[in-house]
């Protein structure tokens, strides 16, 4: 928790409504996201109960499992879900673009679009992961056959929830509460921000309560926490609902067994009750998306979405080619590769956000990892003559009121010229300010004197930060999985579908 973000919460509390934590939108929003509100049965590991799902805010599809303990019905639900999700995936695979060959990769085709799933909260992503896990090892053959789409859905849900969702900067699978909380600070705690309605109540309090009531954030949040008005956004249902409504409806269906009319009525009653519980969350989700859409797009949005599109292209092709389901646990090599991937994504995302958004950069000023101020002097002519050919090494003096705690020799960069990485020569106190002396050593052209505009001018405002100077090194090569050394247990066993994979639910 940075002091800046902490102060923003206090300001939000004082203002009675949320305050911005970002000035641009740091996630990509697809033109037609697939919104998914899953609800699971209490007490079971991954027994779907119901879901609202779709790309049309006025016409969500309601999926319901009439008897959540009936394992066959669970897979009927998953098959229906598969049709919707895989249809969304298929629609993103129409057009492609040609990607020129590079040193490490031959020429390839990248899809012009990628799917985007939006769920209410991190619990929704965990529900997707569990549903994906329960579906991906199924088979259309054998003693417990399922719809052939179910194992494909399982692979995709796993990819969304387990591969892409934890990757910083990826937007193919978003938990709305997390995205909103990254863009606004509320006057409540991070724990309460996990409640979608309460979080939105701080951002747009006027949407809560009767029209024209003019509620404040905390007033609206108090209403939002009332489960009768704003039911749980899932994946767990409210215990009161289970006790008061759901158990009776499920019992009614069991009683109606054999009586077609009664069974039909009972099913309808259950569907209506569940629709009533899910609809408010569905509406909130779209409102949240509207809020995000109103933010200007971040500078690196296109770049990051291109990465998502590329990963999607790769994954979709692998599924087409019959890749085995993702393993239960990653092998040593796969885990190490993923760690490198996740760390690189995080580092890149941090840097991109700081470049795209002055408010993100501001947090680094408070921690002493960045400083902003005015250029007070420049020695543009300065050269390093120790080598055979003199090299331009201009010096820049910048006066700042920020506390500079960076060490001598630290590399920094600024958004105006992100590839130029000057190093700190000295920091001198002048009254309440500091004067930082920087030496420029790159990104000034190839001539003996620096290119026009490549050296800051006196009077210019600049903000230099270490995060902007971060350089990315490719991770060290890892052995092939078959070459896993003894230190890590030797090569992993190859995946072969086992009977137990297909019937593990039926013990």
């Amino acid at each position: 928790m940075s002091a800046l973000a902490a102060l923003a919460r206090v300001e939000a509390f004082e203002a009675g409504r949320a305050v911005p934590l970002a000035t641009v939108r740091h996630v990509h929003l697809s033109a037609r996201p697939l919104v998914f509100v899953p609800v699971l049965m209490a007490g079971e590991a991954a027994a779907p109960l119901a879901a609202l799902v779709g790309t049309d805010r006025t016409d969500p599809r309601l999926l319901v499992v009439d008897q959540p303990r009936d394992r066959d019905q669970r897979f009927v639900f998953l098959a229906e879900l598969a049709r919707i999700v895989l249809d969304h995936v298929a629609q993103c695979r129409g057009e492609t673009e040609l990607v020129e060959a590079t040193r490490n990769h031959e020429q390839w085709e990248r899809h012009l679009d990628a799917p985007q799933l939006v769920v209410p909260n991190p619990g929704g992503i965990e529900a997707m992961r569990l549903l994906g896990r329960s579906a991906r090892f199924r088979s259309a053959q054998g003693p417990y056959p399922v719809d052939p789409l179910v194992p494909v859905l399982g692979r995709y849900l796993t990819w969304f929830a387990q591969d892409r969702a934890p990757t910083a900067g990826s937007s193919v699978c978003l938990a709305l509460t997390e995205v909103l909380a990254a863009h606004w600070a509320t006057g409540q705690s991070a724990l309460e921000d996990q409640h979608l309605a309460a979080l939105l109540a701080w951002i747009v309090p006027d949407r809560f309560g009767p029209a024209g009531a003019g509620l404040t954030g905390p007033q609206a949040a108090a209403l939002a926490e009332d489960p009768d008005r704003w039911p749980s956004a899932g994946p767990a249902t409210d215990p009161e609902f289970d006790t008061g409504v759901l158990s009776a409806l499920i019992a009614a269906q069991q009683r109606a067994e054999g009586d077609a009319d009664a069974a039909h009525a009972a099913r309808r009653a259950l569907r209506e009750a569940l629709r009533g519980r899910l609809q408010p969350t569905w509406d909130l989700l779209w409102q949240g998306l509207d809020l995000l859409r109103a933010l200007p797009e971040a500078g690196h949005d296109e770049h990051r979405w291109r990465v998502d599109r590329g990963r999607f292209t790769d994954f979709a092709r692998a599924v087409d080619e019959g890749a085995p389901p993702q393993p239960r646990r990653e092998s040593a090599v796969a885990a190490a590769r993923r760690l490198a991937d996740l760390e690189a994504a995080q580092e890149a995302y941090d840097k991109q956000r700081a470049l795209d958004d002055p408010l993100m950069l501001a947090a680094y000023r408070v921690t002493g990892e960045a400083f902003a101020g005015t250029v007070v002097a420049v020695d543009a002519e300065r050269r390093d003559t120790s080598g055979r050919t003199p090299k331009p090494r201009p010096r820049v003096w910048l006066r700042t009121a920020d506390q500079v705690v960076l060490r001598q020799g630290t590399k920094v960069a600024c958004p105006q010229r992100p590839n130029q990485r000057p190093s700190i020569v000295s920091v001198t106190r002048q009254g309440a300010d500091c004067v930082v002396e920087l030496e420029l050593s790159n990104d000034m052209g190839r001539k003996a004197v620096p290119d026009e505009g490549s050296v800051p001018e006196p009077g210019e405002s600049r903000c230099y930060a270490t995060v902007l100077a971060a350089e990315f090194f490719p991770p060290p090569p890892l052995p092939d999985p078959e070459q896993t050394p003894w230190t890590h247990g030797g090569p992993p066993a190859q995946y072969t579908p086992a009977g137990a994979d297909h019937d593990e639910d039926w013990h």
Partner: protein
Amino acid sequence: MTGSSAERSAAARAVIDAVTADLLGAGHRGVIVDSPPGAGKSTLVVELAGRLADTGEPVMVVAQTNEQVDDLVDRLAAAHGAPGSGRGLTIGRLSASGYVPTQRVARHTGGPHAADDSVTVAGKVADLGAPAVTVATAAKWARTAQPERPAGGWRWAILDEAYQMRSDGLLAIAPRFADGTALFVGDPGQLDPFATIDGERWAGSPWDPTDSAVAVVRAHNPRLPVHRLPYSWRLPATAAPLVCRAFYPFTPFEAGSAPQDRAMKLPGAATVAGPADSGPIDQALDLAAETGWALYELPARHTVRTDTEAVDACARLAARLVRREASVFDPGYPGGRPVTADRVAIGAAHRDQAAGIRAALDRHGADLAAVTVDTANRLQGREYDVCIVLHPLSGRRDATAFHLETGRLCVLLSRHRHACIVVSRAGIPELLDAHPHTEPVHLGVPVKFPDGWEAHQAVLAHLGGHRVTAAR
């Protein structure tokens, strides 16, 4: 304290012999040596590198930082490479492009001013000739081409600071010695390696890439022999029992030196000019000189991390210590040696605290420039005569997992040969009492002992007897 100094040295040699026997006996693919702080880990690495090289087969040595690599190269060359050292081994130092040999490496690379020419520096294995021992950082090893030479990989590997190496880092270099035998050496009590992302998804997996190299090797090879170095030659008799009790409760060790072996003397405070309020500062220094420990306690208060008073107290203690011309005594320097600024370190938990202390020191005078000020992470593996520590929990209202991390406190309290002075706000016992115990538990993850909370309690209980209250 058991046995005479000679007996303790013999016991330490016996461990080295046992490790050698396990390595040469060919019964194991690897051997692990746990070393408490200052127990002669480098001596072991240098000695084992020599003995393994005696087999005539090449040895690769892995360290974590360039600093550590250069230290090892220097020590290896002095022990085995220099003329008259007995072995006359050749040593290769693999380096990244742009590496300029430090002075301690350059004096072994030949030329008019060099002591010897046993060391070759190059960016590629092939350019080293065929040295008996090759040393590089883990990062460099990971980027060397998969064994060009020697055919089939290295017969012997020594991995230093293996507890600070991440599992994925080991995976990248292990193919280079996969058909050989490896020695893993490290201090299990120091800071664990860290990842910049949350590694919870792998918790409990034997392939958790964020785990330490030793943890993953042991998970897959539970029968590897584990040896332990029994004596800390760094920590004085005043410190070893506390550090052992608090941080190594199940793997006991003792100080290698007897209480009478070490002494720190401070000329009378009155002889040194100084500000009028240096009373408690001097008291803390005197107490530390006498007992090895002092707790310089500031009034209880919650503060921002860069607590000005605490930061300044650290700087003043260091300044006063140097200006009072303290000297320390040890059988290695029986005539005493002065505690100069470069023999003093100030340790803190956070970088901004270290920066604040550095700034405060600078205001106290240029003669303190040589005092080391750093975070626990960067003080790992280093040694000083006196350490001044800004307590990680000082001024905090709630303890986080970061602040409670056992390794952090252990590093800070085990860098000194003579005395350690802890600077803290009062109120830490209350903070620990109020600490909620609701940490998540992951199946299959061995519980780390000691628990940070317990370790802090043990340390505070001890420091309570060495308290000096700061004047306000």
